[in-house]
């Protein structure tokens, strides 16, 4: 039996190597090429592109933007997804099924479609501004899209379903009886939440937060379409360099840099989750 196991893993291994490892190696190779003055790629084994990318202050700005945007979207999504997941985890209501579907529905819709939905809601003449203006709360439309705000809102929505699922999966240790025990010992519902429910769900929060952060870091469509060309993050720059500038080496260096950054962040999230689960 033991000798068969590696054989069974072979298809998966071939798949991962072919679909992931090989293209990643090709990507790695591009990072060492050079770029001519008009954008032509010159095959080389050179660290020039690497040096240029990290000497450029814009790389730091991209990193900062990506981290900040991901952190705010993740925090917002957590604030929204946590109560929702807690409710879904506990309720016996007949609304549980429909609500759970609604919660993960955005996952099933194309990102582009969702983004255009947000444009219709958040645009200068969109739903939010129309309502606020018609009730006289504002005189000029609020700038809710084509800027940082729009991207944050869009990202928050796009990662929420994944985080909801991650939270639901991570709520394993939550037990209604523990909250009842806290109440029987004199803790109000809020105190019980703070002292029992919240600490016990910290591993789930770390897991969902890590996932949301990584998804935000690698999100491309949302910052691209809702950013109005004003929100520069690593993912959009990688794409822009490859598809508008034809600059594969820079794109490859940034992609590898982002990959390393994400792996480090995932490892951190894993460590945090494990430490919190103790």
């Amino acid at each position, binding site marked *: 039996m033991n000798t068969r196991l590696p054989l069974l893993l072979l298809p998966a291994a071939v798949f991962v190597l072919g679909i992931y490892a090989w293209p990643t190696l090709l990507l790695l190779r591009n990072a060492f090429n050079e770029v001519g003055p008009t954008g032509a790629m010159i095959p080389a084994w050179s660290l020039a592109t690497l040096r240029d990318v990290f000497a450029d202050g814009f790389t730091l700005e991209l990193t900062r933007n990506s981290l900040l945007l991901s952190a705010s979207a993740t925090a917002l999504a957590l604030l929204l997804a946590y109560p929702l997941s807690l409710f879904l985890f506990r309720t016996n209501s007949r609304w549980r099924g429909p609500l759970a579907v609604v919660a993960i529905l955005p996952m099933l819709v194309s990102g582009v479609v969702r983004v255009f939905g947000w444009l219709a809601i958040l645009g200068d003449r969109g739903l939010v501004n129309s309502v606020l203006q018609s009730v006289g709360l504002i005189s000029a439309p609020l*700038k809710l899209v084509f800027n940082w705000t729009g991207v944050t809102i869009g990202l928050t929505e796009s990662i929420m379903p994944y985080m909801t699922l991650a939270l639901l999966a991570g709520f394993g240790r939550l037990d209604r009886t523990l909250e009842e025990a806290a109440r029987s010992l004199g803790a109000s519902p809020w105190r019980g939440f703070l002292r029992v429910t919240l600490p016990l769900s910290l591993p789930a929060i770390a897991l969902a937060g890590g996932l949301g952060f990584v998804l935000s870091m690698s999100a491309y469509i949302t910052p691209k379409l809702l950013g109005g060309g004003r929100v520069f993050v690593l993912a959009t720059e990688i794409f822009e360099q490859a598809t508008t*500038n034809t600059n594969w080496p820079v794109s490859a260096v940034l992609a590898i840099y982002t990959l390393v950054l994400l792996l480090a962040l995932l490892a951190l999230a894993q460590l945090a989750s494990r430490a919190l689960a103790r």
Partner: protein
Amino acid sequence: MLTRRIALRTGLAALAAPAIARAQKVGGEITLMAYSGIFQDNYTKAVIEPFIAANPGVKVNFTSAGTSAQMVGTIRAQKADPQVDVAIMDVTTSTIGNIEGLFDKLSESEFPVLNELSPEARAAGGAFGPAVTFDHLVLAQDSALKPQLTKLADLWRPDLKGLLAISAPPNIQGLALTAMVEKMEGGDYRKSIDAAIRRLRELAPSVNTFEPNPDGYALILNGVVKVATAWNARTQLVADQSAGRVVPLLPPEGSVFQINTINLVAGAKNRAAGAAFLAYALSQPAQKAFTERMFYAPTNARAQIAPAAMARTATAPDIRARMIPVDWNDILKMRDQWNNRWRREVIAAAR
């Protein structure tokens, strides 16, 4: 068995253009890579279908990869085993392909039609694939906007705050606009773009989006913006399709040509048929048909374009006079620098 039919067609084709006569011996399949959407629709009707009618043995597959940069990237990735025979793309990216050896050089002996092209069209590709269409940057505006824009400087009108869609670099519309604004300020983009950047910085707060999606026309038709940077040909088409809702303005301060070249992929699977198609695409009938259908200016100087269509392209003498001579190779070398200045000085001012 086929001889009689070929003879008949040879007679007809010989009257139209020598290029067709040369193409008739070819067969098999070729793959053409070019822009999708309305370009594909119109190019199929105006050029591909007549070509197939003249060459029943050839099947033309149309494919696209998105932007010009994505197209040259695809061809670069297939260098060892090319899947594309002919590619139409922006000159800034075909130049990269020429340097990287992705495309074949074209000789006048093999392609006599090259002699019919305008000097600018030949110059665009050098020894490689020449220009197949000319286009130029315009301002697309909502016909409901009162008063209508009449010049580039009108973009700075205070009533347009938040109503502009400006494609920023590295998009070539942004590069073209930079050259145009520098010219408007009396400068020369080859020396400095300081004046342009200063003016664009003032414009930034008026900009709704620096990255119009899906495109500027859609934003105008949806009422999101009133004015968008745009290419003339598509704007002319959208103007017709929207019953005049979108109006193109060629700024009197001058505009910049956008050039699409047609290229024969090095090591193409079906070079003979690919070459025949390339020659046909540059021929007078193809150039005439496509210009009259989509308002790209022809690159074949001998193409006889209907005056109504001609007036809507940059071939019209009065329009041509306003064009700023731009060498895209110069701009390419400055592209990253311009891009950085836009990001740090222009777009940052709009946040």
